[in-house]
């Protein structure tokens, strides 16, 4: 029988975290920001068909950065979780908080139990209707769940981008203004040519399904 080398748990966690962070830092960022009519999600994405932002449920959207197959698996799990819950109970019982908790549990378990951690960061946005507040939740590779206020970013250079977004934050901005602000924050931080945009909104008053993909993104 082979004897495994002893690795102290601190070292193990540190190694895994470093591995995951490296993978995420390579990914292009996504920002979420509240504006007058809801929440805008905007990403740098050269592909028109492989989306990073998508609809989960009536008022809830998902954004993921890092390894595509890993955040895609989380997205599918999220849609299944939401649809089963909404069908079994009621549509209003599906909340971003419930979903964020589920993602947090999944990522936390994978981080400690699997061969390699997921190299992803996930953002769950919920638009508040009938006077309820909006919610933004960020879940990192180890399952850490944070409740963000107003605006936040995930992916490479997320901290700098969050700073840049905060400096421009205006919750009463129009959609066009919010998009221009997000684009200028991206340009300030990434310091290179942006290779295509992807954007979507969760819009209040647009019926039951608030999610809408923006086809025309004109921020130049």
């Amino acid at each position, binding site marked *: 029988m082979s004897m495994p080398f002893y690795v102290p748990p601190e070292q193990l966690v540190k190694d895994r975290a470093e591995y995951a962070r490296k993978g995420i830092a390579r990914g292009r960022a996504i920002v979420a920001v509240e504006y007058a009519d809801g929440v805008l999600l905007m990403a740098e994405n050269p592909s028109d068909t492989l*989306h990073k932002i*998508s*609809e*989960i449920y009536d008022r809830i959207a998902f954004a993921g950065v890092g390894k595509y197959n890993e955040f895609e698996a989380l997205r*599918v799990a999220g*849609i*299944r979780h939401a*649809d*089963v819950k*909404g*069908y*079994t109970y009621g549509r209003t019982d599906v909340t971003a908080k419930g979903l964020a908790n589920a993602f947090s549990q999944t990522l936390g378990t994978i981080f400690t139990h699997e061969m390699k951690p997921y190299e992803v960061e996930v953002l769950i946005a919920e638009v508040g209707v009938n006077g309820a507040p909006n919610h933004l939740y960020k879940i990192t590779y180890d399952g850490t769940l944070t409740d963000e206020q107003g605006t936040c970013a995930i992916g490479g250079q997320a901290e700098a981008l969050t700073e840049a977004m905060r400096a421009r934050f205006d919750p009463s901005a129009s959609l066009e203004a919010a998009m221009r602000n997000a684009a200028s924050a991206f340009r300030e931080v990434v310091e290179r040519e942006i290779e295509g945009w992807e954007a979507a909104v969760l819009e209040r008053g647009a019926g039951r399904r608030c999610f809408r993909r923006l086809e025309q993104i004109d921020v130049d």
Partner: protein
Amino acid sequence: MNGDPGVSFTDLLAELGKLPSWETGPAGDLAAPVGTTVLALRYADGVVMVGDRQATEGHTIAHRRIQKVFPADQYSAIAISGTAGLAIELVRLFQTELEHYEKLEGVRLSLEGKANYLARMVRQQLPLVFQGLVVVPLFCGFDEHEQVGRLYTFDVVGGRYEEQDYAATGSGGREAKSYLKTAYRPDMPEPEALDTAIRALIAAAEEDTATGGPDLQRGILPNVVKVTADGLTEGEDDRIADIARSALEDVR
């Protein structure tokens, strides 16, 4: 069932053991509310679908304001006749199924794909048919590829048939169809199509005791849904009330 449920919401529920099911005992006189007349017709811009609001239990009126015409997604609608409880659950599952597919795949199912899927759902209800619990839907929608409105009928064994002009089902379906046989003409403009559809429903209510016509006193109006290239619209109650009022006066 073992394995990945893929894009199917029904398979996902089955995997979780949450699929709605009805244990069937020996055939007997099971009294459950039954929904009556629904109809749909093709017109110039798409399809219009109308349903009365009554459900009966034997000779008794079980519900006066039941809904039998539902949006299935942004580009299709489903109407039901038969055992109301089963039918409404079927609709809920069908709606969730379409939305589930759309979100996972990023595109909507084709209209034919939706109709085929619904046929499969009806087929799975077959054991219940032998217990006298029958569900027969009507399905219509706008085909986004071909840019035309389409209309499908079903039978109890899950047979799926595309109709070219109009279709009706439920206890008053025959009367509605015989009205439409003379009143229908292809490519009607929208106001005429709406008028014809509501008049056909009133014709059915005149002859069939189980079908409830528009009840202006109580403010009970038929459910009306239109599907065109711009998507699905429902609930133009003022217009429907006007048409119902003038149609009822003509009957008098």
